[in-house]
């Protein structure tokens, strides 16, 4: 029999789990099931769901494409510049979302550095458009993806790369044929988490993109507005968001169970160089 915990430890674990799970369970129970069809088919709800899902997916894909090269370079470069860059890149995670929105505004807003230039060139202003929702989504989700990828890449055994290099592989080949397959599991998890993060983003999107139904009003904004008028709508949309988040987490566990990302699993020794 394996003894890895005491009764006290179990108690604390149960309390911690309950603290997180019980409010969500109560939320699901409180969703007015009889009103479910009418609220979902309400135009406001459908528009909010469309805006959220479409923009979150685009944000997650953009984040995925740009995060992996960034994480790859950061984990491989040992310069002081790279070490200083890491906390800066990861800072949107700890930044209050509204502050992130303000940061985006000062850059892309009408009085902003780039925004002013864009206005003169004749490009329509960025804030209050659906592109703004995507930009805000990328801004808050990319650091998440980078963080997850960094944790995986930092643990990647160096000797495999060295062996490949000795055998004549170019850096580009190492990237595509060794780095990517190794990190595939982490990329999937990172993108999934980044997607849910972009889906739940509220402060940055509200400040930067505004709240226009069908264009920039996301599900969190619709929930916030519903709280002001019809609480039932808020419960239904919240319930839907929760179920979707749970589904994402269960889905990403299925195909990547074999990926060597769990440090507690023992992997075989790397090949010795003769």
């Amino acid at each position, binding site marked *: 029999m394996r003894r890895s915990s005491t009764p006290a430890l179990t108690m604390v674990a149960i309390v911690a789990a309950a603290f997180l799970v019980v409010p969500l369970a109560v939320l699901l129970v409180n969703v007015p099931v009889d009103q479910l069809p009418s609220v979902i088919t309400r135009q406001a709800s459908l528009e909010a769901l469309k805006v959220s899902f479409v923009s979150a997916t685009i944000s997650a894909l953009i984040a995925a494409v740009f995060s992996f090269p960034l994480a790859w370079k950061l984990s491989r470069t040992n310069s002081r510049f790279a070490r200083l860059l890491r906390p800066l890149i990861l800072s949107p995670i700890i930044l209050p979302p509204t502050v992130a929105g303000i940061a985006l505004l000062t850059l892309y807003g*009408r*009085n902003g550095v780039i925004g002013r230039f864009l206005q003169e060139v004749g490009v329509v202003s960025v804030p*209050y458009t659906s592109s703004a929702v995507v930009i805000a989504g990328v801004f808050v989700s990319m650091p998440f993806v980078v963080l997850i990828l960094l944790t995986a890449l930092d643990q990647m055994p160096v000797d495999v790369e060295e062996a490949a290099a000795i055998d004549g592989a170019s850096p580009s080949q190492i990237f595509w044929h060794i780095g990517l397959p190794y990190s595939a599991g982490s990329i999937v998890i990172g993108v999934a988490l980044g997607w849910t993060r972009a889906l739940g983003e509220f402060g940055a999107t509200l400040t930067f993109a*505004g709240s226009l139904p069908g264009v920039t*009003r996301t599900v969190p904004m619709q929930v*916030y507005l*519903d*709280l*002001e008028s019809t609480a039932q709508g808020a419960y239904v949309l919240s319930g839907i968001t929760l179920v979707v988040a749970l589904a994402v987490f269960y889905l990403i566990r299925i195909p990547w169970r074999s990926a060597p990302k769990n440090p507690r699993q023992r992997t075989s020794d790397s090949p010795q160089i003769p």
Partner: protein
Amino acid sequence: MRNSSVNEDGTTGESALKFRKIAYASGFDLLKGARSNFKLISSSSRLSCSGEKANVNHRHATIIARAMRNVIALFIATSALVGCATDTPRQTITVLAASSMAEVLPEIAEAFEAENRNVTVQTSFAGSATLAAQVRTGIPADVLITASRESLEASGNRVANPRIFARNYMVLATNSSEINVISDLNKESVIWIRCDESVPCGRAALLALENERVTSTPSSLESDVATVMGRVRAGQVDAGVVYRTNVTLKDIKIRVLNFKTPAAVDLYISEIKDSTHLATAGRFVNFLISSTDMLTTSGFEAVRK
């Protein structure tokens, strides 16, 4: 807000303060003395066993003197603390108010506190629907001010005696030189916003816009008017439909345009039935209703029935 120790009859609370200081000092003395007293008693008991009588007598006298001092200190300490309890009790009343009162309510509260020195007024601002939800779910409060009839009814039965005390008219606030009449909102380059229909300021905005020939759509529908005003102030948009009270004297770069249809929102005020300071709450409500000067300067239309 301000914490002053001046009582209603004009006397200051300084004597109470002095008493409290003496009480603390006596208390500390007692504690310090206790340790040395203990050493004195234990050493004298040891010495008496070995028979040094002269020293023991001296020590006995010191112990008795110390004991008397401690008893007197104890007496002063307790009487000072008891004395404090007979001061005029400080009251704190909590006023829940709609966001449109955010500029004028602190001024009214300060004026009320100046006339009622033992009262502190605490204010809390939120959208009317949020306030209604708070009151319905039992938040401890004494006065409620909301900006819509629906939220008043949604507050439940804790609302004692609601009456309208002011009206807030919608205006167009703009920071742009391009906008000189309301129909300028139709211009291609103009970005304008208003509240969403599901909140009172949004419904009033729609009424105000009815007779204006505005065909362009707003770029954002906010959930509260403070956000609308914030965006106009920051220059993120060219114009926003807000309450007249949202434009303060400090907004020197903002111009106000009136609508052809005067659309307004009625403000209701009421005491909360289960308030623990019902009399003071009632006095505050009457004070506020009669502060017509402050209300009018802020942009409201004062209503006195």
